[in-house]
């Protein structure tokens, strides 16, 4: 549960205030809105890329705001989509002549609010496009890929969008790159224990002893199935199998990998997991181009982890390898 807290109803504002003070070198607060933006935005001719959603998932979303990544993030309350008003204000603050691209995980509330904001922005003469992250293979069958939830694989989509817009691609191209990246991303996660909303003392779900939840949500939703607790080796097999079950069309054998902790799971455990994941991927004939291990999309103090695969091709590789500098991710260009 949340221990470092003042009045729970101030949690979001306190968090944003601290974040902005800590990371002045990357971003500033959007005046009069619950969001952060790079000081260099808007830049003429550059599409402004904005992500956003509920908080509780750091470094998603604000931790990805910086050069080569997002121009701004809209910050909602914990696990709650920001209102259309806030999405509208943040976008207004950074919108350039090249347009605005919204990107966020596919959730009903976010879609409603960002779509309402998009309509208002279009009314103001601003071009807006949206790329939804839909990487969670557990949440819908392959035929309904576009109906899947967005979880940790979003990192790859945001990275592609940031790099595409940074090199000066136009709005249609940035959107195409983001959709292509999303189409090439798959994630599967498991949970060992639930998380607790700030100010509350009971977790949103609990997991019975000896069990784990398969197909996790990142807002304290329970898993989609319940399974027996497994060894790290078995877990690596389960997760790899699920992620590999539904590769993108025309997939190459080059992949980038994220082994993600939802919060409480330690990096040490992620490494133990990756040892066998690497073996599974190799056996499946894949060539791992690079791996990121750590907390890339969290759910407060949830105990759990996920595996994301990003199938690379000639379009996506340079976007992944492009330089970036934001609080959660810095990359020196190759």
């Amino acid at each position, binding site marked *: 549960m949340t221990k470092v807290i003042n009045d729970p*109803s101030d949690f979001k504002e306190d968090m944003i205030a601290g974040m902005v003070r800590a990371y002045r070198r990357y971003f500033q607060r959007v005046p009069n809105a619950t969001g952060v933006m790079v000081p260099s935005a808007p830049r003429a001719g550059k599409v402004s890329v904005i992500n956003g959603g*509920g908080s509780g998932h750091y470094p998603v979303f604000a931790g990805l705001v910086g050069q080569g990544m997002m121009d701004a993030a809209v910050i*909602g*309350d*914990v*696990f*709650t*989509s*920001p*209102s*259309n*008003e*806030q999405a509208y204000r943040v976008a207004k603050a950074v919108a350039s002549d090249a347009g605005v691209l919204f990107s966020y995980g596919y*959730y*009903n*509330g976010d879609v*409603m*609010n960002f779509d*309402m904001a998009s309509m208002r922005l279009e009314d103001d003469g601003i071009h807006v496009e949206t790329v939804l992250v839909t990487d969670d293979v557990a*949440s*819908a069958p392959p035929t309904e890929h576009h109906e899947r*939830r967005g979880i940790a694989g979003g990192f790859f989509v945001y990275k592609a969008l940031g790099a595409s817009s940074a090199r000066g691609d136009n709005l249609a191209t940035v959107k195409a790159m983001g959709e292509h990246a999303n189409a090439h991303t798959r994630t599967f996660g498991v949970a060992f224990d639930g998380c607790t*909303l700030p*100010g*509350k003392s009971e977790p*949103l*779900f609990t997991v019975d002893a000896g069990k784990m939840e398969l197909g996790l*949500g990142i*807002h*304290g*939703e*329970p898993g*989609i199935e319940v399974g027996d607790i497994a060894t790290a080796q078995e877990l690596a097999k389960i997760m790899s199998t699920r992620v590999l079950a539904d590769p993108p069309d025309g997939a190459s054998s080059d992949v980038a990998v994220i082994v993600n902790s939802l919060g409480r799971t330690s990096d040490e455990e992620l490494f133990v997991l990756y040892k066998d994941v690497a073996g599974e991927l190799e056996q499946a004939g894949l060539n791992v181009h690079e791996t990121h291990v750590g907390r890339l999309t969290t759910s407060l103090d949830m105990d759990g982890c996920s595996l994301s695969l990003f199938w690379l091709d000639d379009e996506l590789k340079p976007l992944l390898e492009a330089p970036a500098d934001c609080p959660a991710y810095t990359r020196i260009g190759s």
Partner: protein
Amino acid sequence: MSIQVVQTIFESILETISAKEDELGKLDAVAGDGDHGIGMVRGLKAAHKTTQDTSTTSPSQLISDAGASFSDAAGGSSGALVGILIITTGNKLQDDSMDTVHVAEALELGLTRMCKLGKSGPGQKTMIDTLDPFITSLKTQVDKPLSDAWQAALPAAEDGMNATATMTSQKGRAAKLGERSKGHKDPGAVSMFYMLQTVSEVLKSA
């Protein structure tokens, strides 16, 4: 309907929902993200504040303004959906004709927009399952004064709410967890009923 009645409505709704915050959160946690209680209270606090700080003399305008504050502060699905319902109702109403016919009409437009925004309709285990039968019932009693008609329409809302327990959710975060939600009422359907019930009490004593 006077400014004061609008103020009392939002004050009373805030009181009711605050008392139910945990219940709503727990219902939402069954298959969703558990924030429905917190979000509704946050939104209603902002709406209530707007009705207190206002300088407007138009009750219908005040309803719209309160709806906008609610929507912004609540965020999430219910911020958008309940928000559009309240804003639309306020926009559609005229200060000089707030009788049952016009209120039913305004609510109905709100419901239509809600369904459009949510790409949803009755039977999908949402707040709509409370609101839709309520409005249908209200429309059959347009000859009664608002407070009587409103009260008479509550049983339909309650039945609608209870029926959500037998449904499988197809909308919102809970959609991915349809099976787990069976046997539990939808949190949005429950909060919608509490709100309608509270409005009835205010109207009766106004």
